[in-house]
């Protein structure tokens, strides 16, 4: 028997879930909570093997609950069941320390399978989830680096062009060029354009 704890602030959904899980013969719902706080209280007296956790809850949400469980070293597997299904959420759910993720509209079979898997292997990743996470990792669209435009401006500054000249050359306003210049200095941790020239030479941006 796998002991399952539920944390969801929607009673109707929780009850539906309980009825759904009761159809599986090896699963027993041992605790039901409206939010993280209630859950943590219950878990003190009632040990569970798997936690089915919602993210959006009042008082203490899913993320905080995971963090608290980790802090308290409560031994149980966490399966997040949420309406959120964007890559950002899935990524963050795993980042927070969840052992599995399922969207709320998941079917009974998948849910029971996920409980089994997380209990036996310690984690559950559906193929869809895996794909989303992998896609997200591949496409490194968030960069803390220098944009092509910024590189262009670094070169021009290093070549000795003034802000006005750069603006004319790139069909930009002085204001925009100045904004770029400040952003570049910020990113490179430099104080002035002279440092920028040194950097450019060092990095082989100019010869």
């Amino acid at each position, binding site marked *: 028997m796998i002991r399952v704890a539920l944390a*969801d*602030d*929607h009673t*109707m*959904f929780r009850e*539906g*879930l309980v009825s*759904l899980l009761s*159809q599986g013969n090896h699963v027993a719902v041992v605790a039901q909570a409206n939010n993280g706080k209630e859950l943590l209280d219950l878990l003190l007296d009632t040990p569970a093997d798997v936690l089915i956790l*919602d*993210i*959006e809850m009042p008082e203490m949400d899913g*993320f905080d609950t995971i963090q608290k469980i980790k802090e308290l070293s409560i031994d149980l597997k966490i399966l997040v069941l949420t*309406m*959120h*299904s*964007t*890559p*950002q*959420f899935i990524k*963050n759910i795993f980042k927070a320390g969840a052992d599995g993720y399922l*969207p*709320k*509209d*998941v*079917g*009974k*079979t998948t849910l029971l399978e996920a409980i089994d898997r997380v209990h036996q292997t310690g984690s559950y990743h559906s193929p869809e989830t895996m794909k989303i996470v992998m896609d*997200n990792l591949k*496409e490194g*669209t*968030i*960069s*803390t*680096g*220098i*944009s*092509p*435009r910024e590189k262009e401006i670094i070169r021009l500054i290093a070549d000795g062009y003034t802000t006005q000249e750069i603006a004319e050359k790139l*069909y*930009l*306003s002085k*204001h*925009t060029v100045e*904004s*770029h210049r*400040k*952003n570049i200095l*910020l*990113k490179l941790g430099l104080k002035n354009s002279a440092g920028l020239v040194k950097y450019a030479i060092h990095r082989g941006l100019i010869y």
Partner: protein
Amino acid sequence: MRVLIPYFFLVMAMLPLQSQEKEAIDSLRITLSLVKNQEDAATLNLALYKRLMGVHSDSAQLHLDRAVTFTKKDLSSTLTGKIIAAQVERHLIANNYDSVFHYVHKALGVKKHLGPKLLIDVYSMQGTAHYYKSEYAKAIAAHRRAEKVCTSNNLEGGMAKVFNNIGITYIKMENWPKAKEFMTKSFDLCKKHTIERGMAFTLGNLGIINKHQGDFKEAIEAYERSNKLLDNLNDERGMARNYDNLGALYEELGNHSFAQYYYLKSLNAAQAIGDESTMTSALHNLGNLYAKQGDFAPSIANYEKSLAIAEKLDNRDVVRDNHLRLANVYERSGSPLLALQHQKSYTAWKDSIINQEHLKDISELEIKYESEKKENDILLLSQQKLRTDAKLAQQRARIRRLSYGLLGVTIILGAGIMIIMQYHKNRKQRQLIETIAETQIAERHRIARDLHDSIGGSLALAKNTLQCVSENQDEKNKNIQDSIQALSQTANDVRRIAHNLMPGELVKFGLVPAIHTTLEGLKKTSLEADLYTFNMEERINPNKEIHLFRIIQEAVQNVIKHAQADQLNISLNKHRKYLSLMVEDNGIGMDSDKTRSGMGIENIKSRVSQLKGTLNIDSVTGRGTIISIQIPM
């Protein structure tokens, strides 16, 4: 005693007025009542004095006095000179010789403003006054000065008058050759310029001179010519005098009947025109004539008449002479008592004349002193008044300044209060708007969460339940499948709506993940989007996050809808004091698509201003658009 009446041209001013003159006076008076200007008023008063002098000496005096009061104020020097000259004339007529000299002195003080004619008059009047005071040398000196002015200004008419006056003075000095010389010169000039009156007068005077030189024939001739001229001029006064003088001439010649004839003629003429002065003279001369002939009764009668008129005229010399003559006649006619009486009267009058003249001198001095004192008083008063006026004006100016100052302060205070009130009102309104916006955000947040979790969850549950039902059935029920499909679709819609209302990523993870999710959605399009961030690990103020997210959403939407770009770069850099957001595309630029600067940009502008940030948009046709925003942290 011979009575000589020489003619002065001055007398011309005292000729009787004609009706035309009266009209002129009236019109002058009316004009005077209308003018406000001092200069004009003084001029009019002076003109009225001149016109009225012969007829109404009192009112003439009044006008002159008024004119004089103006000289205390700012009058032109020319006018002041004229008024002073008029005062000289007035005092000469009144026989106040010391006053004459006083005003002559005053007039000569403004000599250069007098004008040659007036200057000649002043010198002439000075000479005449000296003449009356028997100071003949001084008189001639004064007349000579007048002559000089005439010569230098080539005024022959004036010269004629001056020569006449000099001649008269020589007559008094009994320097007959000199008298004749000047009188002849005067006559010639009068003749040259056909001044008939002048000719008549000089001829009259030449008559006197000729008589004294023993040229009786010439004298008579001169008188007759004079009379002819005077007759033409209707000057009966002059004629009366000439008759009187002719009488004296014939008396001298011993022709008593002719003398009597002319005396009587003179008397009649004088009586006809009411010239009492000539009457006394003629009566006195008649008395003399009768006395010589031993006709005491008519002699006494004539003397008495002359005496009566002389007394009336206060002509003391004639009164005195009449008393003396009467004393003589009474003595000779055997009335010693009456003779003694008249002798006493004579002595009394003689003394009185001396005393009177003495007293007159003194009183004249006193009057002069008084008038000067009065003038000074008036001057002092006017100065005081000026000072008071100035003080009043100063006070008024100070009050004005003060009230202007007060007004200014009040306005400034009022404006300040209004500005402060407006500022408070604006701040309140801003706070209200901010509160409304915050409430709206919170509300959206709540609605989004409810939609997403509560309704979304219920839908998911319903779908699951239906799926269970479907799985438990042997054959697939199409209705159930459709319902599952519909529920699935609805759940997706709800999730999308909730996300639009308030993206969960923004609330849970912050700006960068939220932007990332937004850009994630672009993967299906041909637009390649890159996000560059720096120092954005820590979350910023949720309100700013929402605004910035909406700005980026708006900008991205704009690029998708209008820019026709294939590259989109968003850069988000947190500086020490501000956050820099740049949204850059390589599309067609905003200039070529006016609609882009529509609602989307307006929304961005309004959000930037709510964040108190700055917005700059660079857009060149064919070279894309860069929206650069800086938000203070």
